[in-house]
């Protein structure tokens, strides 16, 4: 199964139409797309407008390949699950977002080993074919991402929360019961 997601805020029909045209040639591969606020109807893919956080994760877990806009929810979840992820950035010149920050995001996130980038319909088709052909499998788990933030950020936030108070975790560690 291929799972595609375009987030909840704005339509992204360029991605969905590109996926639909690819699916026309591959009726053997089921495709489910979370379409958000799109008003279009599609011939070759199954669609759902919005999904809960839990279902979003479940669909990603099931999927062989994930296709998405360059949103951080998609990128972080796919990285945690080690899923091949094809990203198409939203572009402001087509009215797909308020600005081009998804290009900035993508420039950095394309470094993740599970991520490839498709900037056009042709590129998306090629990336899908190659992901399904298994080209991706070899190195896809090279830098599996954990489900938590990096240590310095967690330490900073913890310190910010507990400023001027004894940290409970530390206090527990010094009680006789914990020591025993």
């Amino acid at each position, binding site marked *: 199964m291929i799972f595609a997601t375009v987030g909840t805020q704005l339509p992204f029909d360029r991605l969905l139409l590109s996926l639909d045209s690819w699916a026309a040639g591959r009726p053997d591969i089921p495709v489910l797309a979370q379409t958000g606020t799109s008003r279009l109807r599609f011939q070759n893919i199954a669609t759902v407008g919005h999904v809960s956080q839990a279902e979003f994760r479940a669909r990603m877990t099931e999927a062989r390949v994930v296709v998405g806009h360059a949103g951080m929810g998609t990128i972080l979840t796919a990285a945690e699950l080690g899923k091949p992820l094809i990203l198409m950035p939203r572009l402001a010149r087509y009215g797909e977002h308020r600005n081009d920050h998804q290009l900035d995001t993508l420039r950095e996130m394309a470094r993740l080993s599970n991520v490839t980038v498709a900037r056009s319909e042709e590129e998306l088709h090629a990336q899908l074919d190659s992901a399904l052909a298994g080209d991706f499998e070899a190195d896809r788990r090279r830098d599996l991402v954990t489900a938590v*933030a990096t240590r310095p950020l967690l330490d900073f936030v913890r310190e*910010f929360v507990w400023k001027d108070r004894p940290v409970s975790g530390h206090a527990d560690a010094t009680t006789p019961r914990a020591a025993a």
Partner: protein
Amino acid sequence: MPVPSRSRPVVLAVSSGGGHWVQMQRLTSAFEGAEVHYATTDPTVSEQIGAGEVHVYPDANKTTPVRLALCIARLAIIVLRVRPDVIVSTGAAGGVIAIRLGRLIGARTLFIDSIANARELSVSARLALGVADRVLSQWPAVAEHTGADYRGAVL
């Protein structure tokens, strides 16, 4: 052993749905031991949360004035009910509003800009710069040219 409630900080963690929420989830271990309340725009997240209470507020931005008013009113109710010692937000607009309200009751406030903003701060983070005690960017170069701080990232 439970810590006496007086010594336990009350944290209000505010984030929009989608990527903002996913980033907040990656910070939850930093809240361990505190009394945590989550405020978010996505009512479906309560299935996911083990510890901590979930409050829902309407999503809004400056192009939706009526929803914005509702959003402010709802966040005011949440802030007054929870009476947080600390507010942490991973964006977007609702986080800045909650932080502004939180300052009125003396909460310590932290705004963490989304890791998506790799070249410039988001509009919300720029607004937070004048209001929150600390504003973090997850990119060193962005922090350097904006007056935000860099203290690591969610990834």
